[in-house]
């Protein structure tokens, strides 16, 4: 419980970054640029998610919130300072990128609706959108890696491993496309019958791309999980690792671990298979429903996984005296 705000921050950050990457990828990959407008709905994901993440991280430090500007003062040696700066950069770039989507003269859903944001978007110019998006995506990837490296500390033998930043990055690649698929599926389901038919093909194409991406990321995640469990039992993780692995596999956190495996891995794979089969059978509606389910499962799984990450960690100082023996 004590890490709930961190958990929320990281999962929403992953969602924001993942969704942004998915959108940028879509923009790169879509051949018929005219259909881009249909993807606009997905541009609503990154910024709200990132803002929820920022709010969540602010809550534990609320009493000192006016002091929070100080967080960037130690950029030379503190990864957290770097994380704060990269978060800001990511949000700024993502915000611009989002603006350029939602204010687009052809399909921007907020065009001429909210004050002067159109003017700002126009000033930046829509032709640079993909470049800005790419920069935001790079920042996002940097953000997740720095967030992960934050926890790669010699004083935390359990986290002191290359898998830690990857555990921050890889789930973003499952969450993002799944979130985008969900947004598109919801749009599809809400759309009128007439529009549905022309939208069907587009959704089918996207889902066909997304499920492979999510599958790939999930497989990487499973491999990482196995590597991590192996690492915990290696000499470099030491006694802390052994104690942690015991807590995970046969101890107080076993339930959490099993739920995590069940959601982000087992159920996710089942749903992915379901999506694949539905697509093959051209049952787009079912595929859409399954995609929504997939996203929920992945999201819950990631919340559980991040909670497990914080809870099942035996700190160095708890076992340090052993080293004196």
């Amino acid at each position: 419980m004590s890490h709930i705000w961190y958990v929320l921050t990281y999962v929403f950050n992953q969602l924001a970054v993942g969704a942004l990457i998915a959108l940028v990828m879509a923009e790169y990959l879509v051949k018929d640029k005219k259909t881009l407008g249909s993807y606009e709905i997905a541009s609503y994901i990154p910024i709200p998610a990132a803002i929820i993440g920022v709010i969540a991280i602010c809550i534990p430090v609320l009493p000192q919130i006016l002091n929070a500007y100080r967080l960037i003062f130690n950029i030379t040696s503190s990864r957290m300072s770097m994380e704060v700066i990269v978060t800001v950069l990511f949000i700024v770039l993502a915000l611009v990128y989002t603006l350029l989507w939602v204010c687009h003269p052809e399909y921007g859903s907020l065009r001429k609706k909210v004050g002067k944001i159109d003017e700002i978007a126009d000033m930046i110019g829509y032709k640079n959108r993909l470049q800005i998006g790419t920069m935001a995506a790079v920042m996002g990837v940097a953000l997740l890696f720095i967030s992960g490296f934050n926890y790669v500390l010699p004083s935390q033998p359990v986290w002191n491993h290359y898998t830690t930043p990857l555990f921050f990055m890889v789930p973003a690649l499952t969450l993002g496309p799944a979130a985008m698929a969900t947004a598109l599926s919801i749009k599809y389901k809400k759309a009128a019958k007439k529009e549905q038919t022309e939208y069907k093909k587009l959704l089918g194409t996207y889902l066909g791309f997304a499920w492979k991406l999510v599958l790939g990321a999930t497989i990487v995640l499973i491999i990482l999980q196995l590597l991590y469990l192996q690492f915990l039992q290696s000499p470099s993780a030491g006694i802390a690792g052994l104690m942690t692995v015991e807590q995970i596999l046969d101890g107080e956190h076993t339930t959490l671990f099993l739920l995590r495996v069940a959601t982000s891995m087992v159920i996710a794979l089942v749903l992915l298979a379901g999506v694949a089969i539905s697509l093959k059978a051209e049952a787009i509606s079912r595929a859409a429903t399954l995609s929504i389910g997939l996203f929920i499962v992945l999201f819950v799984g990631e919340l559980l996984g991040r909670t497990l990450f914080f809870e099942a960690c035996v700190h160095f100082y708890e076992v340090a005296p052993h080293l004196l023996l």
Partner: protein
Amino acid sequence: MTTYKFLPDVERCIRCGGCEVACKQENNVPIGMRRIRVVTVNEGKTGEMNVPMACMHCTDPACLKACPAKAIYKREDGIVLVDKDKCVGCGYCAYACPFGAPQFHHGEGLFSFKGTMDKCTYCVLPYEGGAEKAPEPKCAAFCATKALLAGDADEISATYRQRAAMRLQKGEIPGE
């Protein structure tokens, strides 16, 4: 050049808790915050051992490097302190410290704010802050078995070497 350090002589620590209480009293540390605590390993088994763990006042403090707000500083005499006016309460130092020295409020519930970090100040600063006093840590002064050694690094090492030498030679009792 004085460099203040702690050295726990684990052969002697019996976890009586004198250091913990002496610290609370001297520095007015509230309940729940433990600037020093004694950790037991292998409890009830052969090899049982107690180690008093406060802040080690590291030469190259991980907390100082990790602190994003530059609130942690090291005095010339080696004592590592935190400026509570600058501390944001992010808690990152607690992850970076290998000894679990940084302390935060441990409330229950969603909105239990951590507050600013507090840790062992080598008895130069009480919990509520104020003017820095002379570095005379009460945990070591009150240590029941003289297990926790404090003072200038050279003095500590001299004391510890003497003990180690005696333990090695297991010599005659002086004066007999």
